[in-house]
């Protein structure tokens, strides 16, 4: 067994890796290309950074391309993102034209590879027009949607849908996110990588240094939310919940740690709002971390006592599984993929308001044993359901299903 697969076998189990080998055998040598819009920042880039090498280890000729764009392009795609999550957004025609132009420019760079690929997986709306721009393609093309588009702003969805209908299949994280299209709509929740810098085991000195590095007191409880500074992650709601809980537990500390992705121009405005909301409280630590601060986030998640992910809209919320993997109970917004990860009252709590989050914070603050027990359950739940090995298995299964064009029962040849 290769070194990489052997390392995953130690965490996920030998039988899981055997399963991947069986599934990948009929796909050996297949040329698969993933395309997204950023190599750093955000859950998609993190998943691809690990998923692609694993596919290569399984003898699939798998590669990853990121399209490039300027500020106007990302402004447009961020507007798409907000609109697909339900916000009413007016996007100027000039930005739309620019979006298509940037895609056409990228296609020229990628055309030889995309034309020859057996399978192309396009992630999210940013590179969606590439399929239409590449009529000479010979492989199967799949659109992978990582965001919650259950109630999209219809004019924007109508515009994007014209690019998506010609794909051979789509993949959504949850059934609730899927929109009807004239091709199969596969369901694949995302995953975390247990061997990545963000999730690997750290030694106690490194964990301990996290306290001093950020001026945190190791003798007082820490609540943490790790997420981009994005309104849908509701960082202001987290500050409100913390203030409500702090009136009962004055020693409580709050850390709001977020990176910024290169394709998110709105982050700065939200960060400023959070800083204003936190201004008068020295126990609120707002940390703007660089996109590659994975080890730092790992340390923060390990020193936290309670983790929040109080999103009001969420594609999936991988930070929930990351925290659960580190044996932390999670107070999560009752939305999207968080519902799949947080088993209410078992691995954490689902909440619908800052008040609800405050109530659960108070509950967990006062019940140490329950915190620890929930954390233990949370880790096992992630081991069984949300590790990257499960994600690879589902991609391989879908590849087999699409390449063989069979309806219900597929026997790899």
């Amino acid at each position, binding site marked *: 067994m290769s070194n990489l697969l052997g390392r995953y076998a130690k965490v996920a189990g030998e039988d899981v890796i055997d399963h991947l080998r069986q599934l990948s055998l009929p796909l050996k040598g297949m040329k698969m290309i993933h395309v997204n819009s950023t190599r750093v920042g955000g859950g998609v880039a993190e998943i691809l950074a690990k998923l692609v090498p694993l596919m290569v280890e399984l003898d699939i000729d798998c590669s990853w391309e990121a399209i490039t764009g300027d500020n106007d392009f990302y402004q447009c795609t961020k507007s798409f993102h907000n609109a697909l999550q339900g916000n009413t957004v007016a996007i100027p025609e000039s930005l739309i034209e620019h979006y298509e132009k940037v895609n056409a420019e990228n296609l020229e760079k990628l055309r030889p590879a995309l034309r020859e690929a057996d399978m192309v997986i396009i992630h999210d709306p940013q590179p969606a027009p590439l399929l239409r721009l590449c009529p000479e393609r010979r492989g199967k093309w799949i659109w992978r949607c990582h965001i919650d588009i259950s109630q999209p702003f219809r004019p924007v969805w109508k515009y994007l849908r014209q690019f998506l209908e010609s794909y051979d299949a789509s993949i959504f994280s949850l059934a609730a996110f899927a929109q009807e299209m004239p091709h199969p709509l596969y369901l694949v929740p995302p995953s975390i990588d247990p061997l990545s810098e963000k999730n690997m085991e750290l030694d106690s000195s490194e964990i301990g240094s996290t306290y001093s590095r950020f001026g945190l007191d190791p003798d007082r409880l820490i609540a943490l939310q790790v997420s981009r500074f994005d309104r849908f992650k509701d960082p202001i709601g987290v500050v409100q919940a913390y203030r409500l809980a702090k009136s009962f537990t004055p020693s409580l500390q709050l850390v709001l740690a977020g990176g910024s992705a290169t394709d998110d121009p709105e982050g700065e405005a939200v960060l400023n709002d959070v800083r204003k909301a936190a201004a008068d409280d020295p126990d609120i630590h707002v940390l703007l971390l660089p996109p590659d601060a994975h080890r730092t986030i790992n340390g923060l998640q390990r020193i936290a006592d309670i983790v929040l992910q109080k999103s009001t809209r969420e594609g999936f919320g991988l930070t929930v599984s990351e925290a659960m993997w580190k044996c932390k109970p999670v107070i999560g917004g009752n939305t999207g993929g968080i519902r799949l990860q947080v088993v209410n009252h078992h691995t954490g709590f689902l909440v619908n308001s800052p008040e609800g989050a405050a109530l659960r914070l108070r509950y967990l603050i006062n019940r140490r044993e329950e915190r620890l027990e929930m954390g233990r359950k949370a880790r096992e739940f992630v081991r069984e359901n949300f590790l990257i090995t499960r994600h690879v298995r589902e991609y391989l*299964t879908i590849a087999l299903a699409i390449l063989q064009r069979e309806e219900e029962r597929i026997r790899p040849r």
Partner: protein
Amino acid sequence: MTTRLESTGDFFVKDCALTSIATGRRAQNLRELRDDLLTVHPGSIYYHFWGGLLRPSFVEPEYNNDFAAWAFHGLHDQILAERLAVIVPTDFANMEDLRQELIDVIDERLDETEHVPWSKADQQFHFIRSQIVVMDTHHTIREPRELADAVPKMSISSIFYHFIDARRRTEKGIDDFRAWLAGFEEDYDGLALSLAEIDPYFSSLSELRDQLASIFRAHFSRRRRRR
């Protein structure tokens, strides 16, 4: 050495992986659920009864099929949830009979209620179906007594394939173990009866594997002692 009928070959251990596919159909209220049930792909009915075995789950579900769970959590109709929960899919010869039973139970409930129960906007019932990819493990069982050692080593998805999925594809609608044992001249009726008594609807796949292993172990150790 056992004697097998001419048509009985070795037991080829298979494994499988399931993909979930959204059908795009969703129900907001009980009447929509009923109308969708009339025409939804039979694989979707199968998925909502059995798919839970291969989905993330943590605790014993209150209801063993998705329809009953939605009646309770989505529609808050406890009576309907209980009536749907007692439907056991193994009691029905095929998916069409099971579909009709679901529709009958829902129709009865619609007849006796004044208002059609609705769910909240974000608590719709989403019809999902699945595809199954079947793989060879290249592991072969030649003699029934080998089952005692082989079953505990099977993956839970192999158990799903041979013990659950088999009921859809074997001629008599039984699991692969019983179907294979029937091809031997030795009397395996007692063993087959023990296997038939396992209720696959109320256990996780790893629990099923343990139950199967325990039955095979007990059976073949008894036979050794008798010799």
